């Protein structure tokens, strides 16, 4: 198969079934095609809308939140939702709405930073493993086996108990434990891509291996990584909430959603709102990222559906 053949084959695969003969001549950029298919998925659009809303809330948190995260309304402990305090107040009289809004910042910051760390490590190790093969591959894959043998929440809790409990250590822990699957996905793509003719052509042209790995192979291996990365942000936020819930996340007064749920645990019978609002925030955020990730997968690879 020559390069042109491949391009045509690829183009035919993304063309919609109901295309008019006249349309076939006009080339559409891949991006537009992906967006058109993504848009048709209602859940993915709802998810995307929520993610955008969340990012806006996180960016403008100080302007949206009516109170500061540490302000205590005197004597108003565990108040149910009211006009003054939309989500009520917590155990020590702080405004829950303001804390949930600021919590979006904490969750997104951790979710995105940790995912970026995982992506960088996973990409580098997975690419090396798949491209070089041989001993490098065996060693790196054995390394992922070792880490996969430790259930990651146990690993995270264990590391957190030693390196301390702060936002940065949570980012490090989740970033350093999250790359395993990414490395495997990247490795699998590299294994199959490195055998293709265009890589052979690039090698024949005398390009360096680094250039071939990152300029020629990587762009073609990006699709599953984008999908996985999106869903991973949601999973990291879920994991961060779990770590905060068991007490090894960012410490007071940082408004971590998981820690707020843990606080509500004690007043389940008289103030369920304390756990309900942050709990719902975690749930909706994770769900939104899953929907966007699923939508992206279907849009990027129509054959999969």
């Amino acid at each position, binding site marked *: 198969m020559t390069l042109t053949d491949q391009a045509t084959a690829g183009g035919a695969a993304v063309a919609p079934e109901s295309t008019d003969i006249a349309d076939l001549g006009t080339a559409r950029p891949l991006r537009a095609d992906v967006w058109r298919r993504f848009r048709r998925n209602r859940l993915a659009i709802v998810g995307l809308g929520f993610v955008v809303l969340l990012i806006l809330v996180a960016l403008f948190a100080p302007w949206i939140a009516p109170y500061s995260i540490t302000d205590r309304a005197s004597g108003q402990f565990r108040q149910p939702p009211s006009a003054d305090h939309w989500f009520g107040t917590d155990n020590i009289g702080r405004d829950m709405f303001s804390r949930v809004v600021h919590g979006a910042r904490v969750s997104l910051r951790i979710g995105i930073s940790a995912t970026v760390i995982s992506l960088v490590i996973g990409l580098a190790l997975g690419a090396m493993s798949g491209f070089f093969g041989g001993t490098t591959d065996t060693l790196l894959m*054995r390394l992922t*086996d*070792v*880490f*996969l*043998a*430790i*259930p*990651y*929440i*146990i*690993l995270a*809790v*264990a*590391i*957190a*108990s*030693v*390196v*301390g409990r702060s936002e940065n250590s949570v980012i490090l822990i989740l970033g350093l434990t999250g790359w395993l699957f990414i490395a495997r996905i990247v490795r*699998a793509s590299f*294994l199959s891509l490195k055998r293709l003719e265009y890589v052979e052509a690039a090698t024949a042209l005398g390009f360096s291996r680094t250039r071939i790995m990152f300029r020629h192979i990587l762009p073609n291996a990006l699709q599953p990584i984008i999908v996985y990365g999106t869903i991973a942000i*949601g999973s990291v936020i*879920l994991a961060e*909430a*779990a770590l905060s*819930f*068991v*007490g*090894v996340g960012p410490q007071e007064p940082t408004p971590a959603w*998981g820690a707020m*749920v*843990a606080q*509500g*645990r004690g007043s*389940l*019978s008289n103030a*369920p709102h304390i*756990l*309900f609002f942050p*709990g719902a925030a*975690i*749930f909706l955020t*994770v*769900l939104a990222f*899953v*929907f966007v990730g699923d939508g992206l997968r279907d849009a990027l690879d129509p054959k999969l559906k």
Partner: protein
Amino acid sequence: MTSFIIRRLLLIVPTVFVALSFLFLIFFALPGDPANLIAGGAERNIDPGVIERINERYGLDEPMTTQFVKYWQRTLQWDLGDSFLTRRSVNETLGQRAPNSIRLAFWAIVIEIVVGISVGMVSAIRRYSIGDRFTTIVTAAASAIPVFVLGLVLQWMFAVQPNKHDWPEWARLRTSGIGPDSWAFFVIPTGEQWRYLILPAITLASVTTALLARMTRGSMLEVLRADYMRTARSKGLRERDVVMRHGLRNALLPVVTLIGLDFGTAIGAAVLTETTFSWPGIGSQIVDSVTARDLPVILGLTLVVVLAYTVVNLIVDISYAWVDPRIRLGKGGQS
């Protein structure tokens, strides 16, 4: 087959060795002096003499290599050390906690298999029906809701509300603890016991049940299109036999691996469920020990969890190889 099992067994040894050595080094080689922890934590000003005596007692003043060798000597004899906090041996704690974790896990797995497979199967057969759509939404939701939030919401609905509104006594479920220690055949709750067990079991099962249902549905949909299904129908078999004996059996093959992979997720969920319901199992003990910085207990119990995880994955791999000859013969393609 034998060579596959041997190869797989040999792989376990270095994996477990490196994983545990890694955890040991994290705990005992990183800054954050263990002796300081035993004496009460970094916040207090501790008499250097006390630190010295602690170091001597636990051998913390020896070179790291000596400590490391000694750790493995002890571990290989299944001596997991003593708690820094209570001085009780980790083995004793393990003996108390492990049965509770196993009981909870047992019921969660029963729920997972019964509900997950049947829901997934029905969903696939009645594709695009209202029930199928409902299942799709519920399974997506179940994998996004944090285990501890689900646990607390269930507590609120089935334990707090019944008490507030004077529901009959039997309908008031318990929010925490394990209740009277009354079990028949090790795992079957008797008397009051089920009121303590049912909510944590459902909570723990939620995540993996959703995954299993989704996986079964996908796998079943593929199988339903297979040629042998048409053959089975044209032979004049009853629809029930076609679906159950020809369909479900084949659909469950890929699902088996998932159960193994899921075990890691399930362990995480177990830690959170046990904490949420104050269920006295291994998971809640690990969290308590992390809070108390009781390193030997964390390390010892983690060792047990890693071993359990490895063994489950081994069993899954072997059973999968047993049913699928392509893997056994090493022709399953690149892993």
